[in-house]
């Protein structure tokens, strides 16, 4: 079985994100970028399936500017076999990504697609679901456990209030939640080996996909600053503050 994994290049989770001065978005110049953490989990899951003999080949797909190649290299250094870069400097919204992914799927014919449940930059949580709709494939989102047996996948999902286990037909789409696994480090020997693994480059034009944004961003603002707390002396003062300052009682 071939497994396709989507990997997105996002601002590193350690970076303190700043809004651009003109409120059109967040500052990405001179900011450290890394693989979306949920996508690391997706790659790890694919590698485990390969180690278990369930998967034979792992293809890491990324979309965006040339630098997304580094994100693919990270996936290759973790253990993916080859990469596909859909190169564009245009803004890509979830629907465009899903359409491009579908074009890649049509060509690659994977038995399983694993995506992060969302990217930590825009937190859309849409691409996996849209891709499932476009392909007409079953989907299991927010996965915390994946078991594949023959043409069925048994997936445990993290839902409000607990865990839900479903069985779906293959080929299918899985999106990863935080507790699915703990991704491995890209070890030094694998970093060196990853250089020799191929990355195929494509463009949305070659693939005949219209990536024009359907949504317009009006304004991006910093969340309001949290003010320092105060220590109240007694209950009476607390009640007074809740009533007269906070206005909650």
């Amino acid at each position: 079985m071939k497994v396709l994994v989507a990997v997105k290049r996002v601002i590193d989770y350690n970076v303190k994100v700043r809004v651009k001065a003109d409120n059109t978005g967040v500052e990405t110049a001179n900011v450290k970028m890394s693989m979306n953490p949920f996508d690391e989990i997706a790659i790890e899951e694919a590698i485990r399936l390969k180690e278990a003999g369930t998967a034979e080949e792992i293809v890491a797909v990324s979309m965006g500017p040339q630098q997304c190649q580094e994100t693919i290299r990270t996936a290759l250094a973790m253990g993916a076999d080859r990469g596909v870069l859909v190169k564009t400097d245009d803004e890509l919204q979830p629907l465009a990504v899903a359409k491009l992914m579908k074009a890649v799927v049509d060509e690659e014919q994977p038995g399983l697609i694993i995506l992060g449940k969302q990217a930590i930059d825009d937190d859309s949580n849409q691409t996996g679901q849209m891709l499932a709709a476009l392909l007409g494939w079953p989907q299991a989102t927010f996965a915390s456990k994946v078991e594949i047996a023959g043409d069925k996948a048994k997936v445990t999902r993290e839902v409000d209030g607990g865990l839900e286990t479903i069985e779906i037909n293959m080929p299918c789409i899985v999106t990863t939640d935080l507790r699915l696994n703990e991704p491995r480090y890209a070890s030094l020997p694998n970093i060196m080996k990853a250089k020799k693994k191929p990355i195929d480059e494509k463009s949305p034009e070659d693939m005949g996909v219209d990536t024009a944004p359907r949504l317009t961003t009006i304004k991006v603002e910093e969340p309001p600053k949290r003010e320092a707390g105060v220590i109240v002396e007694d209950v009476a003062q607390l009640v007074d503050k809740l009533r007269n300052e906070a206005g909650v009682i």
Partner: protein
Amino acid sequence: MPADYHGGESPFDFDHRYQGPAYTDDHHAWRATLRAFVDQEIMPHVDEWDEAGGFPRGLYKKAADVGLLGVGYPEEYGGTPVDDPFFLLVTAEEMARCSAGGINASLLVHNIGLPPVMAVGSDELKQRIAPQVLSGDKIHALAITEPSGGSDVANLKTRAVLDGDHYVVNGSKMFITGGMRADYYSVAVRTGGDGNAGISLLLIERDREGFTRTELKKQGWWASDTAALYFDDVRVPVENLIGEENKGFAGIMKNFNNERLWMSASANALARVCLEDALAWARDRQTFGQRLADHQVIRHKFAEMARKINATQAYLEQCAQRVAEGERPVADLSMLKVQSTLTMEFCAREAMQILGGAGYMRGCRVERIYREVRVMAIGGGSEEIMRDLVARQMGI
């Protein structure tokens, strides 16, 4: 390097500093792996391990799995043969960020123990030792220094006398990093007459009869198991001879250049940690109605720290470049080590002054680094020995 690789808060911190053309994507990828490894596997436990005076043995295995133990060793023994001192620089810098030199000293002690075996040891010895060490299953220490002298290798007194197909070893060794837990020791012994020409290297296993050890308490490097070793009629088979008899001195000296580059990169990285932590504090701390960082006396401290760190970094990379080109710039590597440890000493002092009481408390990285200044300035060749070497190289 991609234009947008950098991150971080300041042009002087790890992410934001200038990294020239010698650093490739491989170096950046390795840096990212080590950053995550240190942040996840070491940082959460670093204070606890330092206070406890040790770390779990399982960390060796984790370090092996990520490729850390194998940096620069041949693939056939389980290493990754990156023949490039910039990998050494990246590794030293990122490992230094945990700011507990004792963890690094013991975790990576094989980088001083194993090289003599790799350089001059027999194939049989390499195959017997190296794979187990690089896989993290066995620990390999180096034992040169004796109670009577350290850098004065030519005068060492531990003696090995041939008796049939065994050497009989008598003597003691001092300040041996990893000495309590090591499984293998590369031990310098006297097999011949006085001076350099009478020294050999023997591989001695920990369970040989008559070989004992005691733990030593130290100012810093608490997480490292430093020991005194005692050899009392220890019988070691001749096949454990590393290289040729009476030719051990060259094997020992070969080690020192890499060790100096490593210690210099570590010391400057520790200076950078001091700057980073003091800067974060000074930006946040309010005194006399303004940020601590707004006081001129504090601002100048930062400028001085940054100036020294950047100058040292430039020298470090110049030396690394020369090593990469096949040179062995002994005088410059010696000067570099002095430059780096003086920079670390200065930055530890200044950062501590800026942090004030908070910096004096255990659990603060600067407090620990302050306690580890001397081991960096003395270990691997003291500043005085380094300067003497420089003067000799200058032909004074």
